[in-house]
């Protein structure tokens, strides 16, 4: 059965973010957040990466159960993280977790363990700052992802299939991204095809949409395009996804519209789950 490979240090998988950094990302999104879309994208990327790192953290260490990579596309393609992680497109999750660009202190209310709450300063890692400049070479970014993942799969032929998370407002300026995305999804390890997720950060108003099974209620053609480019969640992920999102129906795709996709990290089976017991 596909999508059942174990995700472990001896058989890691990878997450590759494709991040829209084009000029249009300076526009306000449709969620009345007061942030521009680029800020929304940075927040989304940082929170998903944080959750991905968190899932590999054991004690004070981070187990390299997967690699994380980024490809930014705007004025030009930018391959890999910046700061201490600059160099390779894909970095082991331990390096990503230990070397964020910076760590910000934020106040939040936490459980005091005795039934109350108290305000604590909590550290938030930041890997990615908002950027909005130039065109939207999404096709080129997807082709670059193809090349990065071909290499990864050649090195890890039995891996749980790599997951691509494309975060964009959907307006590619270098052609139709559907054909290259089909090629990307055609890439496969022995355990199944590469999974492509698309998170649409849009200026269109409307309630967030997460993991829909049909395009019936999507607000515009860009959302429809990104929905078509999104892989259906395989049964193994669907089952786990339902513990966080019980309403997800069969055929749900890895697509979100102005939504928080950080829960995605929990769709992968990497051990006994504690969510039901928190």
């Amino acid at each position: 059965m596909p999508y059942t490979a174990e995700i472990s240090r001896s058989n890691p998988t990878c997450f590759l973010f494709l991040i829209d950094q084009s000029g249009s990302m300076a526009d306000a999104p449709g969620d009345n957040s007061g942030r521009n879309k680029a800020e929304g994208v940075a927040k989304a990327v940082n929170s998903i990466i944080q959750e991905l790192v968190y899932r590999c953290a054991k004690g004070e260490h981070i187990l390299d159960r997967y690699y994380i990579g980024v490809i930014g596309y705007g004025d030009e393609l930018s391959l890999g993280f910046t700061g201490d992680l600059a160099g390779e497109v894909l970095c082991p999750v331990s390096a990503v977790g230990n070397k964020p660009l910076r760590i910000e202190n934020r106040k939040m209310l936490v459980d005091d363990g005795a039934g109350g709450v108290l305000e604590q300063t909590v550290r938030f890692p930041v890997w990615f700052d908002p950027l909005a400049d130039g065109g939207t070479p999404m096709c080129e970014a997807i082709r670059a992802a193809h090349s990065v993942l071909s290499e990864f799969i050649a090195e890890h032929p039995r891996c749980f299939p790599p997951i691509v998370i494309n975060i964009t407002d959907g307006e590619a300026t270098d052609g139709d991204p559907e054909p290259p995305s089909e090629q990307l999804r055609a890439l496969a390890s022995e355990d199944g095809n590469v999974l492509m997720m698309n998170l649409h950060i849009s200026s269109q108003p409307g309630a967030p949409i997460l993991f829909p099974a049909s395009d019936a209620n999507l607000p515009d053609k860009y959302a429809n395009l990104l929905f078509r480019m999104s892989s259906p969640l395989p049964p193994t992920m669907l089952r786990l996804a339902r513990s966080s999102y019980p309403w997800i129906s069969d055929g749900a795709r890895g697509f979100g519209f102005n939504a928080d996709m950080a829960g995605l990290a929990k769709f992968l089976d990497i051990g006994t789950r504690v969510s039901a017991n928190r």
Partner: protein
Amino acid sequence: MPEKPIKWRAFWLPKEGHSAEEYEDAFAGDVASGRFALSDGASESAFARLWANLLVEDFVAQRCVEVRDWHKRLPEVRQQWQEQLAPRQFPWHAEQKFRDGSFATFLGVEIRSDGSGLRWQAVAVGDSCLFHTRGDQLLCAWPLEKSEQFNDSPHLVGSRTPKDEVNYNRALRKLPHSDGDDQLQLLPDDRLWLMTDALAQWFLTEYESGRCPWQQIDEALSVQCEELPSHGHHCLAACGNCGLVSETDADEPAASETGISEPAATQTEVSAPTATEINTPKTAAKQDDIPEPAATQSKVPESAATRGAPEVAEYAQRNRPDDPSDLDSGAAEPAEDQQRFERWISQLRRSGRLRNDDVTLVEVRIL
């Protein structure tokens, strides 16, 4: 306290593809108190092994707390967990995990004598299971009774979960039932098997198919020793009755002080009442998430316990291939025993009959 006519042994193996450091089950046993415990740390939570270890150690050590009142010990155990972790400076991800707490299943059993013989009672949270067998009969499977009852989200005890929540949310199971006339009597040669979920699920699946999984375990692990007229039993590997237990490991460091780097088998044999009462529980998998040994030293059994009671053989450190003491310790059998266990588990995993997960097996036999 008189010794109980019990012997026990335990095996453990991390999930395939994982190192021993990633093993997050814990077990403990103490023949003197007749208490045995098993815990399966939830790998998604951090410091789960520390939590699992604290839970099992506390259970076997706190014999004055009734089994059915086990949850009342949780604030104390939680405090120990907090004290071991709170002073530490964590990286951001560990800090967040620490705020969320650690989670583990728990299974504790106590064997006690009453006027009519031995009985057992138990307490459990989650899917670590206990099986009571007599000959070719399975008398009790608990708390899960069917292989289909296992799932991804077992009930767990959290290091930050209030004890009343554990008690009242139906996560906590107890035997005997409050209204119960459960048959929990133990006769000679009866066995109690404690297993974490993957092996327990295999066990029930086999049983449901009309097979005797405990006999398969025997076949996989037992050594046909030379039969001794006075015992005449089909003994377990390296049991004291066959003279295979040596006393040479008295100077071995306790497993906990060096950290276990290899899967190990632990076997404890108390063949006769001994003048030195064993007050410290034997625990394996002592290395928790904290690298510094200082963090656990106060809690670990002293090697003196082994020294003071030479009948008790700890094999936890014996199986390391780089350990030269193995060569002349006269205790090659336990290593073989563990190898047999590893081979058997690997076969089961390869055949697809055993889910790949940490495996822990504790066998308690009534003599």
